[in-house]
C-alpha cells in the first residue's frame, strides 16, 4: 500500500473540504477568560493535603530537616526492601539499608517490576485538585519508573505547590516547550467496573504516599 502518497492526497482533500465548509478565513477569537486564575486560598499546603487525602492517598507533612527520616519511616512501614529511584535523586533521601534500582534509559521496564516501591520528586502540585504533576525531569525519572512499581512515594516541596489548574499550566508551559512529557496524578488509579465496588490500583501504583515538605 502506497501509504505516503495516499495520505498526501487525503490531506489536500481534507483541508480543502474544511476550508470550503467554514468559508472565509477567520481571525483568532478573543477567549473570555473570566474564570479564576487563583483560588484565594491562603493555606495551600493544607488544601493540598486535604485534597490528596480525598483520593485515598496518604499524606505526610514534615520539615526539610526531617525529610530523610520521614522517607525512611514510610518505606519501613511499607516493608520496602528494593527501591526504584531516578538516577538524580538527592542521595540523602535514600535510606542507607535499602537496595536500590537506579533508572536509566536502557533499563527494560520489566526490571522495574522487581522493585517494591519507587521514590521520586515532582514538578508541580495543584492544591485545588490534589494533583501531582511530573515532567519527568530532575528527581522524577522516565515515565515507566513511576508506573510499574506497585507503590509510589512522592516528595512535594512547598514551593512546588500552586493554587489551581491555571496556575499549574502556566508553570508547566516551559516543560512542554522544551519537549518533556507530563503526567498528572490524582490519587491511585481506580476502577468501579465490578459491581460498582471501588478498587484502587488496577494498573498504576496501588499505593500513593505523598510527603509535603515545609520550607
Amino acid at each position, binding site marked *: 500500500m502506497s501509504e505516503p502518497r495516499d495520505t498526501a492526497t487525503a490531506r489536500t482533500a481534507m483541508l480543502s473540504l474544511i476550508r470550503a465548509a467554514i468559508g472565509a478565513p477567520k481571525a483568532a477569537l478573543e477567549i473570555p477568560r*473570566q474564570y479564576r486564575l487563583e483560588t484565594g486560598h491562603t493555606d495551600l499546603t493544607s488544601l493540598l493535603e486535604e485534597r490528596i487525602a480525598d483520593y485515598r492517598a496518604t499524606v505526610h507533612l514534615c520539615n526539610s530537616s526531617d525529610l530523610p527520616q520521614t522517607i525512611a519511616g514510610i518505606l519501613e512501614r511499607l516493608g520496602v526492601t528494593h527501591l526504584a529511584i531516578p538516577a538524580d535523586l538527592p542521595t540523602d533521601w535514600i535510606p542507607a539499608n535499602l537496595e536500590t534500582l537506579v533508572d536509566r534509559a536502557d533499563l527494560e521496564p520489566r526490571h522495574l*517490576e522487581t522493585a517494591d516501591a519507587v521514590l521520586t520528586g515532582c514538578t508541580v502540585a495543584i492544591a485545588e485538585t490534589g494533583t501531582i504533576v511530573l515532567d519527568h525531569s530532575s528527581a522524577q525519572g522516565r515515565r*515507566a519508573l513511576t508506573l510499574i512499581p506497585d507503590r509510589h512515594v512522592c516528595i512535594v516541596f512547598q514551593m512546588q505547590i500552586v493554587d489551581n489548574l491555571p496556575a499549574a*499550566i502556566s508553570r508547566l508551559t516551559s516543560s512542554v516547550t522544551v519537549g518533556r512529557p507530563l503526567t*498528572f496524578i490524582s490519587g491511585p488509579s481506580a476502577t468501579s467496573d465490578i459491581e*460498582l465496588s471501588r478498587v484502587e490500583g488496577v494498573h498504576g501504583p496501588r499505593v500513593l504516599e505523598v510527603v509535603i515538605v515545609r520550607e
Partner: protein
Amino acid sequence: MPFVDPKPYPAAARVALNDPQLRRNLGKATTAIREKRLRVVAELPDWQALRDAGAAIKTDAMNRLPELLEQLEVSVTKAGGQVHWARDAREANQIVSSIVLRHRAKEVIKIKSITTDEIGLNDALELHGVTAIETDLAELIVQLAHDHPSHILVPAIHKNRAEIRELFLKSFNLEPADLSDEPRALAEVARRYLREKFLTVPVAISGANFAISETGTVGVVESEGNGRMCLTLPKVLVSIMGIEKVLPSLRDLEVMLQLLPRSSTAERMNPYTSLWTGVHAGDGPQEFHLVLLDNGRTKVLEDEVGRQALHCIRCSACLNVCPVYERAGGHAYGSVYPGPIGAILTPQLIGLESEHAQSLPFASSLCGACYEVCPVKINIPEILVYLRGEVVHKKGNSFFNLEAAAMKSVAWVFMDKTRYEFAQKAARVGQMPLVKGNTISSLPGIMSGWTNSRDLPAVPQKSFRDLWRERAAAKRVHP
C-alpha cells in the same frame, strides 16, 4: 411534540422489569453520579465562566481548523511524530493496519476509544490477523466474554462478581481455589494478565482527548492506568483523533482539564492525565503516529447551526441527565455516539438520508437538561429542533409517519421485559462514567457502554426501531 410521552414510561418500566436488584443498582449508580457531579461543579464558583471559555475555545478552534491542523502537523512532526490524514474509516484503518503490519505485530493493546469504535478498527485489524486487546477493565471483561459464545455479550456492570469470576477462571485457566469473587481479587487477575501484555506487545493504539496545535502535545485522560501503560511501554504508539479535537494553545488545557473530569466522572481530577509531544528520547514509544480523521466531520462543519456538535469533549454528562436515554438506553441510537450528543452528531455525520438518521433528532423530549450540563455549552435542544426542521423539509408529509413510527418504537421497547432489560444493559453507557476516565477515548461514559453492540456496523443504515427489533431477536436466540 416530544419523542416520548413521559407519563407511560415509569408505569411501563415497573411492569416490565422483573429484576428489582438490577434496577436498584442502576438507579443508584445514575443518581450517585448526578449528585456527585453537582457537588464538584458547585465547588467551583467560576463554573459558568469556565463553560463560557470552553465554548469560545471550541468555536475558535472550529473557525480556524485548517490552519490549526496544519500547525499541529508541523509541531508533531518537529517533535519526531508522524501525522497521517484519513478521509474516512477505510483510510484510517488502512493507515493503522499498515503500521501494525510493518512492525509484524500479532497483537496490539488498546485504550478504549470511541473514535476507533466509530471506524470499526478492531474488526479491520482482525482481517489482517491482528488481535486488538482492550485494556480497560470493563472492556476486557466484555471482550473475554465475547470469546466464549456461551456468554451473551453484556456490559460489565450487569455481570455480577460470580459471573466475572467464572469468566476469568475459564479465560485464564485458573483453579477455582485460586480465585475469590472479591472485586479486588478479580481486578488483580486482570492486572496480572494485562501487565504481561503491556510489557510485551509492541504497538499501542489510543484515541486522544485533545491535541494542542501550538506545541504538538497530545493528551489522554483516564482512570485505571491502562492508558499510561499503553502510552509509555510499547515501542510504537498510534493515536487516532477526529479533526475537531485540536485546541489552539496549551493554555486551553487550564479550561478543559477543569471542565472534563468534573463533568465526566464527577471528580475534581481523574486519576491520570498523560500529555506527550511527539517522541521523547529514551522515554516511551520511539515511534509515534497521529492519525487525523474526517469521516463525515467536514460535512458537519458545513452547517453553521449543526457544527456545534463538533465542540463535544465526550464527557457524557448529557447522557447521565437525559430522561429519554435513561429509558431507551444506548442501543436505540444505533451508533457509537449515544444519548443527546448522539442524537445530534450521528445524523450529521452520516447524513440525514436514512430513516435511522431522520429518527434520531426525535429521540428527545427537549427538556433542556443536556444543555444545562454541557461543559462546552452545546445547545443540543436547539440543534435537535433545527435537525427536525431539516427532516420535515426533506420528508414533506411523510414526516408525520416517521414521527409516529419513532414514538411507537420507544413504547414498544418498554412493553416487554426482555426488551426492557436489553435497554437497561445498553443504558450502561451513561450510568457508569464514574467507573473510569473517558475521554473520547478514555472517557468511560460514552464509550464503555457501547461495547455490547460491536456486532452492529458502526453506522448502521437502519432505523431506531429496526435496531431494537434485531437486538430483541438476537436476545431470544441466545437467552
